[in-house]
């Protein structure tokens, strides 16, 4: 480790920061349905997910090189390129968190990597066909597969289980949901924590601190596992709210069907070797479960915004990654500029998020479309007529409506 340069240290810290946002962003995948159906208390849910993520990080080092494998030409990749890629991925993760939309952290990372590589080595260094087979097709297939499975399962569960009611049934669905959510968390830890390990190892190899083809050093495994667990524990409450309440209203049976479908799809896909995004699978499963119940509705406006975010993830992260790479190319002061920019914009996004705080206490309150409706009703009915409870229902949705207005502002602020 005597060869540990400053840029390498910066890359490692940035990679851990990305790992943190990754955990933060993806808590929703495992725990949104569990929290929204009330199977677990919010804090308990994220704590459980965090522990399982940490455990998952130590289970194997198999996936650790997946992220860069084949997508870009690895020969001659410099630490600065990885740094630029991470900047793009982190900013996109924070931005989608701010507007409360679930999007794939892996796509953000791949996008950043692609953009930075193009800026550094030209478009020829990116393998276009790998892009289609590893990114585009899975992005379309994952929600379809998981959604269809969840829809059928929900429908079946409702028609079969008409006689399943009472305390025993409620307890049963609760337990089932917790078990499948646990599986998703564990799978997430083995997959995503290892992606960061892969990135750090790649940077260490590129910087000459570690011999090529070596396994990630122990301190890398440990720190990556801790970073993702910490992010998971702090919980991306905004995204949890969208996934658990915003897309559709879930009853325990639906939550169970959705989470089981997502867990199955994630495990089956990684086992068979056609890797599907966790985020896309879970979102699809939640929507499928919403459609599967008679009288269940999917809020397509929220879903559409989510799909748009999915489509933008790769190009947006690539753009930021490319810009960051061309600035770092100017020299050491360029790298410093990018680092300062990353910290400043992260701070700005956090600052904006404080305008309307979403945390464990209000994560299960009103999805956005409901907020719009209730504010409209609140506007029509004379306010003084209400009792105390009326006041409560009228004041809570109002900030939710301002969130809908926000999405236009942040992108403009950060693309500068």
């Amino acid at each position, binding site marked *: 480790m005597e060869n540990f340069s400053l840029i390498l240290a910066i890359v490692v810290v940035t990679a851990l920061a990305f790992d943190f946002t990754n955990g933060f962003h993806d808590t929703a995948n495992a725990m949104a349905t569990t929290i929204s159906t009330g199977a677990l208390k919010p804090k308990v849910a994220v704590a459980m997910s965090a522990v399982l993520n940490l455990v*998952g990080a130590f*289970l*194997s080092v198999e996936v650790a090189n997946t992220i860069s494998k084949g997508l870009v030409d690895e020969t001659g990749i410099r630490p600065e390129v990885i740094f630029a890629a991470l900047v793009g991925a982190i900013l996109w993760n924070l931005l989608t968190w701010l507007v409360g939309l679930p999007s794939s952290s892996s796509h953000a990372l791949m996008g950043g990597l692609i953009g930075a590589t193009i800026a550094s080595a030209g478009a020829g260094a990116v393998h276009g*066909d790998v892009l*289609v*087979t590893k990114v585009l*097709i899975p992005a379309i*297939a994952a929600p379809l*597969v*998981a959604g*269809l*499975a*969840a829809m*059928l*399962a*929900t429908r*079946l*569960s409702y028609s*079969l*289980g008409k*006689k*399943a*009611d*009472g*305390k*025993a*049934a409620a307890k*049963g*669905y609760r337990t*089932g949901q917790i*078990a*499948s959510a646990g*599986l998703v968390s*564990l*799978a997430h830890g*083995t997959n995503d924590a290892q992606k960061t390990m892969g990135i750090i190892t790649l940077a260490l190899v590129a910087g000459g601190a570690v011999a090529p083809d070596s396994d990630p050093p122990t301190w890398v495994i440990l720190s990556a596992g801790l970073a993702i667990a910490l992010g998971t524990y702090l919980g991306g409450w905004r995204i949890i709210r969208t996934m658990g309440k915003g897309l559709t209203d879930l009853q325990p*049976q639906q939550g*169970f*069907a959705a989470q*089981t*479908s997502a*867990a*199955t*799809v994630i*495990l*089956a*896909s*990684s*086992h*068979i*070797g*056609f890797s*599907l995004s966790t985020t896309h699978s879970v979102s699809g499963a939640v929507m499928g479960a919403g459609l599967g119940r008679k009288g269940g509705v999917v809020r397509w406006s929220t879903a559409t915004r989510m799909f748009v975010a999915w489509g933008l993830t790769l190009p947006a992260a690539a753009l930021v990654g490319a810009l960051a790479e061309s600035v770092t190319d100017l020299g050491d002061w360029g790298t410093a500029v990018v680092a300062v920019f990353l910290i400043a914009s992260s701070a700005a996004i956090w600052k904006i998020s404080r305008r309307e705080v979403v945390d464990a206490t209000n994560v299960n309150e009103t999805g956005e479309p409901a907020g719009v409706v209730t504010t409209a009703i609140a506007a029509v009915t004379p306010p003084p007529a209400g009792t105390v409870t009326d006041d409560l229902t009228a004041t809570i949705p109002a900030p939710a409506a301002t969130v809908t207005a926000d999405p236009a502002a942040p992108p403009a602020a950060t693309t500068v």
Partner: protein
Amino acid sequence: MKIDWAALGSVFGVSLVVTVGLVTLFTLGVMGLSRRERASEQGGSAALALTGAYVCFGACAAAVAYGISLIVV
């Protein structure tokens, strides 16, 4: 460009069958439990329903164990 349709197809098929199968099993188990709940409220017992429920849950637990083994190995 080569798209691995076979792999995608099997992911699709396996996911569908396993999800629907698991949820069905689990629902049957939950039904058994609520039948026993009703029976015991009326003072009777439903040993068969309870046994059936445990068999269903056992199968689900086995599926979860298999899932964990897939993650670990």
